[in-house]
């Protein structure tokens, strides 16, 4: 399959995940339990395939980064379901997707990445959309 085919399937998968979290909240799923099953399923699939293909390389920094990234991602999913229980997905997802703006500052500060003029414009638009979206729900 060509890369565009993989991209199309990944696009469907990403959109489906976002919507499934909303449907989960809509069906009264427990935010902790749903997150637990999501994390467990991905862990089992990754572990089984790792064992089949052979355990890959990882440094101690990699283990530490994975531990912090994984634990905060679990908390993110719990909080995401919590937010979706109370607020419209059409507000929650656009706001959450703006995480790239503070992430960019962290990457510039700690990893030496550079900020382009487009990125700076993106940060300004992100600030404007945070203001607009936080007042964007029709009463």
């Amino acid at each position, binding site marked *: 399959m060509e890369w565009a085919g993989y991209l199309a399937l990944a696009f469907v998968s990403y959109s489906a995940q976002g919507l499934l979290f909303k449907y989960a909240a809509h069906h009264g799923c427990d935010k902790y339990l749903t997150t637990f099953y999501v994390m*467990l399923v991905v862990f089992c699939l990754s572990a089984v395939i790792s064992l089949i293909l052979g355990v890959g390389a990882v440094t101690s920094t990699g283990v530490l980064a994975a531990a912090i990234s994984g634990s905060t991602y679990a908390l993110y999913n719990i909080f995401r379901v919590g937010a979706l229980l109370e607020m419209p997905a059409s507000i929650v*997802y656009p706001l*959450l997707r703006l995480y790239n703006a503070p992430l960019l500052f962290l990457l510039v500060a700690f*990893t030496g990445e550079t900020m382009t003029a487009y990125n700076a414009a993106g940060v300004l638009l992100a600030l404007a959309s945070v203001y607009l979206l936080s007042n964007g729900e029709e009463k």
Partner: protein
Amino acid sequence: MNAGKKYLAMAFVTIVISSFFLKEGAMNAEPLMFATIAYGIGTVVAYLAHRRDIRSVDEKHRGNSLKFGTVIGVANFFGVYLILKALETGPGTVIFPVLSLSLAVIALVSIAAFKERLNAKGKLGLMLALLSVLLLQ
């Protein structure tokens, strides 16, 4: 601040931290190994977080949580796999912006399926967020 906004703020902070360390980890671990460790620890964190509340969840909602959690988990795993496959031969400059547009699909389907209503500020905010996400790639 209401409960929804508090959850949203905490979700925002945690996804920033998680993504920062994801980038750091990508340079120091083979992807499948990284996923195994990250999701393994994430499973423990989610278990410890929900343990207190497990008795308050009724059977029906436990069953729904299992169904949705399993389907989302499978979609999550294959989503990452498909992106890695696309990135093997495709340009990241096209792949990541296209993936960001899934935000529009989620918002539009939510508006249609859940009858969510945005006022003029919300609609403008959604469009600016899309543009911002594309510029921040």
